[in-house]
């Protein structure tokens, strides 16, 4: 059949729209995974035993099973219990929770490695335990894990392609739509790959800048 890249311009708008969806979903899921990760870390470390242990089990399950399987569970599971969310919301929740668990692992280690004196000093100046955590310990812990969290965010961008499988019209599914009309899979998947690659390079660039600023701030 050969290759014919001249078919691309006619469908470029569809693919670009998909690209915007991918960026939107990635940003929303990244925010969810960042704040979710902090919340999960606090629960995993400080919640009462009765909450902490089942929670750790759930975290373990999330880390031991594929994201695609989790997306099916969330998308179809929510429908089964009567919550009919749009596919993209289910996708954001699935991606966000999955990476929140990975971020939580990083943040837990970082919280434990913040010097104990910090907490004691914060308590001495009159902050409650919760305040000390929120205002003194967690900010320092999070700063320490920004680089690996950045890697998780870049992984999240690439895994956002999976939400095409539950029917979210992001970059991958848009490419599939164009392929449905033209029967040109190679050209359009390559185009989608190029878009992902460019977004990926931009994220790496931002990550390097942030890392440099953190290095200076120390």
């Amino acid at each position: 059949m050969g290759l014919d890249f001249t078919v691309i311009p006619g469908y470029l708008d569809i693919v670009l729209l998909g690209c915007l969806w991918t960026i939107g979903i990635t940003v929303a899921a990244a925010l969810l995974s960042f704040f979710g990760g902090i919340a999960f870390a606090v629960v995993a470390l400080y919640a009462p035993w009765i909450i902490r242990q089942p929670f750790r089990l759930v975290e373990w399950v999330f880390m031991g099973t594929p994201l695609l399987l989790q997306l099916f569970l969330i998308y179809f599971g929510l429908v089964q219990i009567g919550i009919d969310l749009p596919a993209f919301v289910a996708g954001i929740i699935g991606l966000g929770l999955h990476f929140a668990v990975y971020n939580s692992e990083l943040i837990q280690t970082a919280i434990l490695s913040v010097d104990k004196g910090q907490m004691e000093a914060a308590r001495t100046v009159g902050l409650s335990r919760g305040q000390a955590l929120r205002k003194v310990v967690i900010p320092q812990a999070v700063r320490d894990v920004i680089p690996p969290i950045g890697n998780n965010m870049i992984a999240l961008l690439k895994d956002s392609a999976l939400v095409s499988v539950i029917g979210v019209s992001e970059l991958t599914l848009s490419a599939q739509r164009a392929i449905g009309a033209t029967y040109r899979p190679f050209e359009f998947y390559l185009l989608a790959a190029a878009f992902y690659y460019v977004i990926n390079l931009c994220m790496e660039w931002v990550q390097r800048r942030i890392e440099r600023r953190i290095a200076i701030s120390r």
Partner: protein
Amino acid sequence: MDFDLMLRVYPFFIEAAGTTILLSVLTAILGLTCGALGAAARLSRLVVFRFLGAAYVSVFRGTPALIQLFILYFGGPQIGIQLDAFEAGVIGLGINAGAYMTETIRGAIISIDKGQREAARTLGLSQFQGFYKVILPQAARLMVRPLGVNLNMLIKATALVAAISVIELTYTAQRYIGSTYKPFEMFLLAGILYMIIIYATGRGVAWLDRKVQIN
């Protein structure tokens, strides 16, 4: 919770888990091969190889594995590569995993002190002998654990081939969710099997890691 249903369908999940394991093993072998070649290219003295190695890592780590699979499986026939879904899955995932393993292997090799190589040369070993007999045995020890992390990711990534209709664990779960409308039960069945595979692999890696460490 519908345990009767789970008891009825679990044999299909066991069979599917066999496919997932086979996929993982073949992908791991191809991934290690690509990783070793990639690391050799990235550490080469020739700038062409270094560039090719760096491009391989950047492109395959910089785009979604799912898209790479689609290009190979659906786009392949256009450029004369005709593969069935299982073959495309192994080759696509293997090349993808190889990009991550390239960095792992390279990282372990460059972390070996330079003095080791110089000492080997001083003792009269050739460049190749020095690498093969002095650097590699030390680097191999450092690789086991991070390669284990790569392996863990790789096993979970085999779920992607469900999207090109390879009948493995995730595809089976997806099909039964569609036909029974019992997502939680099906997730539980597939999830338990994945976790057994991941756990067993993790134990194997830990055993190997202990085995290669010098006390």
